[in-house]
C-alpha cells in the first residue's frame, strides 16, 4: 500500500461517507453540549469536498488536502470549519509536492495539523475539544513512524486508535473551550463532537488503505 494521491482521494471520499453516515450521531453529541450542528456542518463540508475533488482532480496528496482545506473553510462555518480548514492546510503544507506519504510524513502531517488547530483555537490538551483527539493521534503516529515501521497501515492504525481513545477520554472532562465551555460542569459526561469527528476522519484513513 502506497499513500499516493489515489489513496488520498479515497480517504477523503471515505471521510465524506463517514460524515454522512454519522451525521445524526454527531448532531446528537453536539445537541448535548453544543448547538446541534456539528454533524450537519461536517456533512455539508465533505459533500462539497467530493464535488471539488471531481471538478478539479488533484495531482498530489498535498494538493488534495489543500483543496479540502479551502473547501472546508468556505463551506463548514462554525468553529469546526476554520479549525479543520487550518488542520488540512497545515497538513498539506507539511506534505509539500511529494507524490507519496511515507510513515514519517503522515506523522509530520498530523503534527502540523494539530499545531494548526492549537494555533487557531488556543485550546490545550484536556480542554475537551478536537485537540484531545489530534494530539494523541499525532503522537502515536510519530511513535509508530519512529519505531521504524515502513508499513503505512501501521501508522494509520496507530493514529486512528489513538484518536478514538482520545475522543472517548473527553467524556468525563469539563469543557474549557468552544461552545461546550458555557455549560461548565454540565459538559462532563458527554463526548466532544469535534473529537468524535476527528476519530472518524482518521479511521477513514485506515479504511482507505485496507
Amino acid at each position: 500500500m502506497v499513500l499516493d494521491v489515489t489513496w488520498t482521494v479515497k480517504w477523503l471520499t471515505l471521510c465524506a461517507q463517514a460524515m454522512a453516515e454519522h451525521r445524526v450521531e454527531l448532531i446528537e453529541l453536539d445537541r448535548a453540549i453544543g448547538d446541534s450542528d456539528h454533524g450537519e456542518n461536517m456533512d455539508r463540508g465533505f459533500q462539497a469536498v467530493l464535488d471539488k475533488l471531481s471538478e478539479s482532480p488533484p495531482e498530489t496528496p498535498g494538493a488534495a488536502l489543500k483543496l479540502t482545506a479551502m473547501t472546508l473553510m468556505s463551506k463548514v462555518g462554525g468553529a469546526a470549519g476554520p479549525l479543520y480548514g487550518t488542520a488540512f492546510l497545515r497538513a498539506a503544507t507539511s506534505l509539500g509536492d511529494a507524490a507519496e506519504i511515507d510513515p514519517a510524513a503522515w506523522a509530520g502531517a498530523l503534527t502540523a495539523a494539530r499545531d494548526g488547530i492549537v494555533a487557531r483555537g488556543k485550546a490545550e490538551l484536556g480542554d475537551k475539544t478536537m485537540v484531545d483527539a489530534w494530539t494523541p493521534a499525532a503522537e502515536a503516529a510519530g511513535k509508530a513512524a519512529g519505531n521504524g515501521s515502513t508499513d503505512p497501515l501501521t501508522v494509520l492504525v496507530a493514529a486512528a486508535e489513538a484518536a478514538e481513545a482520545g475522543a472517548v477520554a473527553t467524556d468525563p472532562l469539563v469543557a474549557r473551550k468552544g461552545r461546550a465551555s458555557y455549560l461548565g460542569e454540565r459538559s462532563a459526561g458527554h463526548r466532544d463532537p469535534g473529537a468524535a469527528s476527528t476519530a472518524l476522519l482518521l479511521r477513514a484513513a485506515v479504511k482507505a488503505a485496507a
Partner: protein
Amino acid sequence: MKKLINDPKSVVDESVQGFGQAHSDLVSVNSDPIFVTRKDAPVSGKVGLVSGGGSGHEPLHAGFVGKGMLDAAVPGAVFTSPTPDQILPATLAANSGAGVVHIVKNYTGDVLNFETAAELAEGEGVNVRTVLVNDDVAVEDSLYTAGRRGVGGTVLVEKIAGAAAERGDDLDAVAAIGERVNSNVRTMGVALTACTVPHAGKPSFDLAEDEIEIGIGIHGEPGRHRIPMENADGITDRLLEPVLSDLGVTSGDKVLLFVNGMGGTPLSELYIVYRRAAQVLADRGAAVERSLVGNYITSLEMQGCSISVLRLDDELTGLWDAPVHTAALRWGL
C-alpha cells in the same frame, strides 16, 4: 418537528430571499455566497458596519441592515457562523474606503471566521476593526472558557455604532463606540422551552414541564443551570441580579432596559418581565431612560427571554436616539 419550511437545507436561502423581496426598498441580497447589504452600500465616506453569525436569530442581523445601523449582514447556516468567503465580499461591499468595522459575537466559530475574513480583507486593502461582543453574564469563570458569549448586547452595539458611523465618525472612533457599548452592557437569558434546529429535527435539549434553563445562550444550547419553574417576577429577579451586579449599577445611573424575546414567547409576557425589571431598577435608584421590548435576537421558536441593561451616557443616548431605518428597528425616518 412542525415548521413553515420547505426543506431544512433551503431554510436560510429561502428566508433571506423572502426578506430581500419584502424589504427591497432597503436591502439587496447577494445569493452565492449569501449576504445582505444596504441598498445604497457602500455609502460614500462612511465607515462600513458588517455583522453576521449563524441564522436562527432573526431579525438579527439582516433585519438591522439599513441607514443608521449595518451596511451588511452575513447569515450562516442555522446556528453556524458564516464562512470567510461570505464575510469577505460583504466586507468589500460595505467598504467605501473609510474602512469597515466587524461586529462579532464572541463564539469560537464567529471569531475565527471573521478573523480570517478580516485578514483577507486587509490583504485587499480594506482597513478592518473588530468589535467583539461578550455581554452574557451567565458565563462564569470566563478566564477558563471561550469567554463570555455575545447575546442581547449585540443589538445595542449595532444600533449605536451604526449611528456613530452615520454621523461621520472615523474607523477607530466607530470601533471605540462599539466597544464602549459592549463594556457597558450585560445580559442574561432564560429558556422555558428548547428550540428545534431544522436539520436536527428535535429539540435542542429536553426540559420537563416544570423546569426552566437559566443562563442560556442564543443557540439552543442548555443553560448554566436548571431550576423548577418560577413566576415572572422571580425569574426576572434571577436574571437581573447578576446583570446589575456585574455591571455595577448604582443609584443615579441612567440605563437602557432591553427585554428581548427568544422568539416563541408572547409580547405580553415580555412586558410583564419589563414591568418587574423596571421596578427593580427603580428600587436601586437607577433611571430607565430608554427601553426596548420585543423579539430582536432570537433562538428560532424558543420560549424565554433575556434582559440586557446598558449604562447610558449622554453620547450613547444621543446615538441611540439617532434616526435608524432597518426592517426591524426604525425611527426618525
